[in-house]
């Protein structure tokens, strides 16, 4: 349970108000939220809004869309929380829903077309020539993490979306493939290429 709690980022700063919910464990909060307890839903919002907003912010290109879709996700949560079956940790489940919502939003903007189009060489993997930059280094400072984050944010959509779903939402390749309506192999190739592109864009670090 604690591990799950830890996955939640700190409370949303602007939601400063304290309530009796604050001390409750996640399990009870979810249980009460399933009974459409507005306060419990509010508490879930307080605990996870920042994390969900983070995902939306990475996935969508403007802050406004991210804000809109964050509220949308929590609005939908009221209806869908009943379908949460505890088979996976709640934060992960929530991020899965959030990912779906973001992809829907991206799709709406493209008027229903696929967010990432399957290309002909779909599953084909371009092998890296040995001269390419090596994987990013081990320990990096806060500034460098910011740089990595900013670079990811600037990656093209077809690289950014799978990368964020994998390393922020921690979805499996299969789950990402399902959300994006793509072949699993293609997702693997996209993530692989995304990392290569990231290495290329970030100043080359030693091994």
């Amino acid at each position, binding site marked *: 349970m604690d591990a799950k709690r830890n996955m939640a980022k700190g409370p949303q700063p602007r939601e400063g108000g304290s309530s009796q919910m604050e001390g409750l464990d996640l399990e009870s909060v979810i249980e009460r939220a399933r009974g459409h307890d507005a306060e419990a839903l509010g508490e879930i919002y307080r605990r996870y809004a920042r994390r969900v907003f983070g995902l939306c912010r990475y996935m969508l*290109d403007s802050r406004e869309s991210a804000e809109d879709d964050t509220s949308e996700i929590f609005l939908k949560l009221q209806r869908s929380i009943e379908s949460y079956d505890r088979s996976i940790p709640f934060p992960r489940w929530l991020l899965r829903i959030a990912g779906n919502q973001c992809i829907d939003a991206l799709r709406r903007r493209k008027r229903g077309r696929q967010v990432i189009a399957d290309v002909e060489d779909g599953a084909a993997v371009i092998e890296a020539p040995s001269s390419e930059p090596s994987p990013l280094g081990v320990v990096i400072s806060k500034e460098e993490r910011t740089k990595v984050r900013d670079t990811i944010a600037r990656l093209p959509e077809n690289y950014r979306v799978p990368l964020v779903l994998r390393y922020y939402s921690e979805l499996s390749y299969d789950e990402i493939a399902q959300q994006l309506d793509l072949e699993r192999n293609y997702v693997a190739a996209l993530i692989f290429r995304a990392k290569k592109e990231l290495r290329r864009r970030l100043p080359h670090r030693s091994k």
Partner: protein
Amino acid sequence: MECYSEQTCALAVDGELAADEAQRLRDHLATCQRCRALVDALRAENRVLSESLNELPEEEASPAAFSPLRWSWGRGDLAILAVVLALGSIVSGWFNELDIPAALESFNPFSVSGRTNLIFQFFYYVAHGGTAMLADYAAVVGWICLLLLLGGSALLLGRRGRPHYPGLRLLIVLLALSLPSFALERRHGEFVTVAANETVDDTLVAAAKMVRVDGVVNGDLLTFGQTVEVRGTVKGDLISFAQRTEVSGTVEGHIYTFSRTLDLEGQLGHSIYGVVQSLHIDDRGRVGDGMVVAVGDVSLEGEVKRSVNIVTGGSADVSGSIGRDLTMVGRSLTLTNTARVGGNLSARVRQLTEVQIADGATIGGKRDIQVRVRESQFTSSRFYFHQAVWLAGAILVGWLGMLVFPSFFQATTQLVGSGWLSLGLGVGVLAGVPVAIVVVAITLVGFPLSLMLLSLYLAAIYLAKIWVGAFLGKILLKPSGTTKGEWLLGLLVGLLIVTIVGFIPYLGGLVHLGVVCLGLGAFACQLYWASRPAI
């Protein structure tokens, strides 16, 4: 044994390799240092990615890292916004200092308890059943606020292309008329929901972060919230002030909205009037009447029975059906193959290439597509005529002023020269007086006084330019005496300068504001001196 490719190693590190293959890789790693180093490096990279992504910046995500706002603000708009914000903060500071009677505390938007804004407070008060008379007065204040809000935003949107807004005027009037003078049910909180099996018989005023209607509202629905969602039925009108308004159910009346986004996926009995940044009518959406909107971007995939009038700062995409005319003023217009316009199509755009009409699109009436030439005001003679009339009027008023209150006018002109004092005082007066007018108006006896104050305020704003113009003329011409003739000549020169400078893009607006503040400050100062008893 041959080494594994980087991608296979990456799959393994992500835990995405099939069990048997993963086992083979592990066996290989035991013997191959090169592959082991690669896998370690990839693992470290994954950690870097996770850590970087999960460490959300304190200020949430920094906007600089992402593409700029969809809504590209002109610098003029930003200047207006900055001025509005500056004035707002001045007003708020002033308001905080003010000792407001306890009975009026609910109208103070900056009180400790008042997180919600003035309008929320206003409706709460009405809903709490304040005395009928006070409610009447309060309604006036509410109207003023709403009108200012709508007028201001219409102006901001309208700056993009001098639109004609008869529809917006209609909206303002209708909004004002539809304000509560009847039964109200008020709800507020984090989430406000009308459950599927619930029926609200009155007009419902809902203020919450998320407002959702699954059931039936027999009256109007007036909402303030981040997200407003109507999935059930609203028999009256929907009036929403929200970041996001989504209608997937039925609204039998009109929709009046001031939202960032409006999504219509359901049925609307009558029309949409609103100021919206992004408007989307889904292919399931159906509007029983027409649409008059000022929007950032609009996409129309559903059906609108009657005419559509759009003033847009961005693009208008139509792939649905419009029963009658489509009139738009904006940047770009796209009609897809499925688009159908029953009546005339009239578009005002900046470039002809911005209008794309697919071959399959049907247009029942005439096509009238015109290019709006920007800055055209300087080429039309009407513009110069208007300016001349304005100038002549100002000279006349100045002359009359000099005739009736010669010393007052000359002294006020002199006081403009006190510079920062006048400017500072003027900013205070410009921002403070409207607040004072509102505060005076809501006390029972003060209403006539507030009207007088308002007329004086408007007159002073007009006269401000005259005093500043006269002052400018005076320092430029350096007249030897202080005769009326010289004063008037100075006024003419000064006003000409002020007027011409006022037309410089971006800067002009600021200069104009500065001029008004200077003049108002000098006026206030002179009033103060004049009211002091002569010793």
